[in-house]
């Protein structure tokens, strides 16, 4: 059975970083967190928005996988127990990703992010190639 979790907010990121013993770095209007792992890897994350603002699932997946280096289960467990994560942990599957040049390129043809999102990355890239081909 898949556990159910609350909708993540930026306050949860802050709570996780405190529980996981990250260092808070205040250098701009953004709140930055940094953690040195025993492996020598330096993790970094930041918050650009108000703490009560919800985080979309795709963005949350990127933050977990690439910045915090934890699974959803470990993320919520750390907040609940206020104990650091024992890394490495098995990470969740990556989100659907698009090369930035595909999103930028389609935007130049008036095909903006909402429409790109309805396509697979392969479909989006194929459409851009077709747009280029039709111009040449």
């Amino acid at each position, binding site marked *: 059975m898949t556990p159910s979790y609350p909708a993540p907010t930026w306050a949860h990121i802050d709570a996780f970083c405190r529980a996981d013993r990250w260092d808070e770095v205040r250098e701009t209007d*953004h709140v930055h967190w940094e953690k040195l792992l025993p492996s020598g890897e330096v993790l970094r994350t*930041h918050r650009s928005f108000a703490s009560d603002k919800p985080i979309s699932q795709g*963005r949350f997946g*990127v933050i977990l996988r*690439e910045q915090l280096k934890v699974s959803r289960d470990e993320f919520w467990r750390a907040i609940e127990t206020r104990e650091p994560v024992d890394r490495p942990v098995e990470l969740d599957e990556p989100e659907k*990703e698009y090369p*930035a*040049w595909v999103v930028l*390129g389609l935007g130049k043809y008036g095909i903006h992010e909402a429409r*790109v999102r309805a396509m697979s990355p392969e479909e989006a890239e194929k459409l851009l190639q077709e747009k280029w081909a039709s111009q040449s």
Partner: protein
Amino acid sequence: MSALLPERQFSEAKSALSDVMDEVVHERRPQVVQRHHGKEAMLLVRPDDVRRWLDTFRLALRVVLDENEVTLVADPVGLSGYGDSLDTAVDDLLIELRTYAQRFFERPQFYAQTQAARHEPWLARFALTHPDAQRDLLIADIEAGMSTGDHAVASAV
């Protein structure tokens, strides 16, 4: 040190600093300055030359799309920019890159002992770009992905 580059002892360079700078800046001649019988050395070079040398260190950028939210991820430095469009996500990533580059070069000895040490050429390239041109640099890196060269960089990091 290699005799292929002009070398000066520290005391000599110090007393002729104006000449040294003229050679580096106006004649584009890198200079090695050393002391303690060559045990310590530094290389003097024009910033724009270094910036050019680092031009192959392009960021590889990818995007995750949610409803009205764009997340832009920069490899290999592992930074993200958040926005409601690609445009605003680029702006947010710019702030992150500036913050990280500043912190990185303020604490070089710390980062040199970590896996983040490998980020240095990407951050140096960004830091050596005029602030007014840093956004264009990011857009150029995105557009560079249109060539197959970006796949080679992404797979190398």
